[in-house]
């Protein structure tokens, strides 16, 4: 932050405008994918969630400054990602578990 206050803040505003534009684009892409015929429900869900991940990376990377953070914070996030992946892994693993005798009406 060695620039003068006015130019420094202005460059920040420009950067933020770009980030907002990127979020706008990814949101439009998600909506388009949602209404488009992509050849099946799993493909559609995968495409929409992939765009959502890109959107989330933009927010986390630029707005939360994760592109240039301290090592300690990356370690905290690494543990979080590990346990989150475990949670979702267990969910996927148990996805088709139904109690014996389950029937749909």
């Amino acid at each position: 932050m060695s620039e003068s206050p006015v130019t420094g803040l202005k460059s920040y505003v420009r950067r933020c405008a770009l980030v907002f534009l990127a979020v706008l684009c990814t949101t439009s892409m998600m909506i388009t994918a949602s209404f488009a015929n992509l050849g099946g429900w799993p493909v559609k869900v995968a495409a929409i969630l992939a765009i959502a991940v890109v959107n989330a990376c933009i927010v986390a990377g630029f707005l939360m400054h994760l592109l240039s953070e301290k090592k300690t914070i990356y370690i905290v996030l690494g543990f979080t990602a590990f346990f989150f992946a475990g949670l979702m892994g267990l969910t996927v693993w148990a996805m088709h578990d139904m109690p014996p005798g389950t029937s749909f009406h």
Partner: protein
Amino acid sequence: MEIPYTVEPRPDTGAYNAKIGIWLFLASEVMLFGGLFSAYVLLRVGAAPGEWPHGWLNVTLGTINTLILALSAITTLLAWAACKFRQFARFKFFHACTLLLALSFLCIKMYEYHDKWIHYEIQLTDGRIADGHMIKNDPKTDYVVIEGRYVSDPKDLYDLRAQKNIPHDEIKIPRAQIKSMENYGPWHHTYLAIYFTLTGLHALHILGGSLVIGFLWGPGSRMWQTDPERFTNRVEVSGLFWHFVDLVWIFLFPVLYLT
């Protein structure tokens, strides 16, 4: 006694204490929402074929809320940058924008909840179903009035996206013909149960974040006069929480509104 490492970074972590604290808190929040997303996945794959709703939520309102929250994340970051560049008036302006955007988000959410609250599915004695928004439900009269339509197959109520030109007529139903009647609250369907749980918890986070941001904008901003560095760090920490709330919505929107 002075609290250490509120401004200068701790030598072992490389960051000031509040920053480490907020990231640890956010890690626990990831697991909280992760558990609920996991519940969503299990409910969805466990639903009987053709009985998971599509098109029950208004995509336009969801999109507007997505953009409102994204814009509020930007104004939060700009408020912090204004503090860094020692422009207190700009900080006040940007944080006021954040508060207004947060309020707009909550207003739209309340409107959506209200829309579900007055939406009824009415089972009739002849086997048909009347579905629509309640216009008149006065216990003194022997009829109710809804704006909606009749369906004979309950599955027609699930995939609204596949149906074009759904009629919205005013229907007067005598109470004697009503077998049962239920609004679209969390008890109506597992989709609505997880929808209200996820978005309700998220809305509580918005409310909590707004209170903190409101405090920093109002009485808490007095710290700017005495300790601007520490105040800037407080703004950064509250901003990190706000960005996380935005991140959660980035996944809630596609999961609940689009898929």
